[in-house]
């Protein structure tokens, strides 16, 4: 097991009565693809920041590869190499004068040789589909929003983390940019065995990509299961303002009208097949 949280709670100092995390128990295994969903203020962002040591929870223990990172005096630098965090709007954090320097910033701090750094930058730019020769000398500030986002993500990838955590990486991207990004995550997970934790507001996105879904509400981890199982909890999900994929909601609406139809399907393809067999069945009666 890669990451383990034991009874983790966190209180922010300035709002002492509101707990951001409440008694979270969680394990993450190597090479999982996890979706993390919850309303704004549910504790998602706090949770991911505890995982790479940016926030030290007020209670509980966090283990990364069996090392307790919450113990006093633990060197958090080692953790940040293992766990890469892509913040919301990561392009706001670009600062170097060229794309290459920006992406190389992390690897340079790892003490790698010049050649190794170039290899890392080259690889990271390949992964985000930016041509190395075309873009390396460009100023990141003169790129489009979508390109800036790619540079920022490449900077985290260049650290070759074991775990990649992304906080709404597709927010504000156009449909093509979003699809490219999601394909990248699938590739990192399948080809490079990276463990992915994807925070998203789009139920369609996590339903399609994740093997496992974590649902947070008011600081609690309220559901932790496969997307198929999680999205069976329609009432709970609507109550906490999340909802379910539209195509799944269609199945529930048909069922509500008294028809016999499966509701545990999430993707367009699955739902399409179920509806085709549903309509055939009806023609027969």
């Amino acid at each position, binding site marked *: 097991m890669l990451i383990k949280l034991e009874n983790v709670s966190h209180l922010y100092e300035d709002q002492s009565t509101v707990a951001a995390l409440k008694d979270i128990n969680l394990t993450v295994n190597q090479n999982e693809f996890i979706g993390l969903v919850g309303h*704004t203020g549910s504790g998602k962002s706090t949770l991911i920041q505890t995982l790479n040591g940016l926030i030290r929870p007020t209670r509980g223990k966090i283990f990364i590869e069996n090392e307790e990172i919450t113990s006093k005096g633990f060197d958090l630098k080692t953790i940040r190499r293992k766990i890469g965090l892509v913040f919301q709007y990561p392009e706001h954090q670009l600062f170097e004068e060229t794309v290459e320097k920006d992406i190389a910033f992390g690897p340079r701090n790892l003490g790698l040789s010049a050649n190794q750094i170039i290899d890392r930058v080259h690889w990271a730019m390949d992964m985000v589909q930016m041509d190395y020769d075309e873009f390396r000398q460009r100023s990141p500030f003169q790129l489009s929003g979508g390109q800036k986002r790619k540079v920022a993500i490449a900077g985290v990838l260049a650290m070759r983390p074991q775990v990649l955590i992304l906080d709404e990486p597709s927010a504000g991207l156009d449909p093509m940019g979003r699809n490219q990004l999601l394909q990248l995550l699938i590739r990192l997970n399948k080809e490079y065995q990276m463990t992915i934790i994807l925070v998203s507001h789009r139920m369609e996105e996590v339903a399609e990509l994740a093997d496992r879904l974590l649902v947070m509400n008011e600081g609690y981890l309220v559901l932790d299961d496969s997307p198929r199982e999680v999205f069976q909890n329609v009432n709970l999900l609507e109550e906490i303002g999340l909802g379910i994929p539209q195509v799944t909601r269609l199945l529930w609406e048909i069922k509500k009208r008294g028809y016999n139809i499966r509701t545990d399907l999430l993707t*367009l393809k699955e739902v399409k097949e179920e*509806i*085709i067999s549903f309509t055939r069945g009806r023609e027969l009666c």
Partner: protein
Amino acid sequence: MSFIEIRNVEYKYAEDMAALKGITLNIQEGEFTVIIGSNGSGKSTLAKLLNVLLVPDSGSILVDGMDSKDQNNVWEIRQRVGMVFQNPDNQLVATTVEEDVAFGPENLGIDPKEIRKRVDDSLRQVGMDGYQKHAPHNLSGGQKQRIAIAGVIAMLPKCIVLDEPTAMLDPQGRREVIETITRLNHNEGKTIIHITHYMEEAIGADRVIVLDNGEVKMMGTPAEVFQEVDKLKSFQLDVPPITELAYELSRSGLIIPGGILTVEELVEKLC
């Protein structure tokens, strides 16, 4: 004459970078128009031209009959066409909500009593009455964006142009903004031009305009535009998930009309 007339408008950022390549478009008063298009399609350039942040290199834009190229019309046009941007944090300037909303009218030199009334009316119209004394930075994204809209409507514009106002919001914030602009359109008769990447936000519009590579490629009611799934995909756009499902089902031989937009419509057709 239409409220906004866009005639053969071209705009270039550089010699070889044409953002708009000859756009002709009429917008009627009271219309709710949604503009979609991938990054670099020219959407934001068009928005800036409507508010005279940019003027066309060639062609013309008439707002209420006033040509945006004429310097004397700039402030008149901006008063009629208000603009809301993507990032709410970049648009709020004051320390309280009411000061923020009052900022525009104050610059026009309007009587303080009238300003008070406009601020309160505007906040009521965006569902933020009671927040007058709140600090904007403590509000949620959706609330901030509604304050930005209130600041625009305090200028009593006929038209509001919103350039991806929901891109940085969570689903709840997005809902709040969409409900607000829909209400402003229905109840107050404001002309709305809404630019978005979220296809499902186009469902309630009177008209959807698809921009690609600086040109208008499609135009019609949401049902008309979204039934052309393959064409939209060729412009790197998506269709709402239910529309795509309906389309796939009809390709598999089920008899389903094109342009289904909501779960409810599709349930109706299937049951």
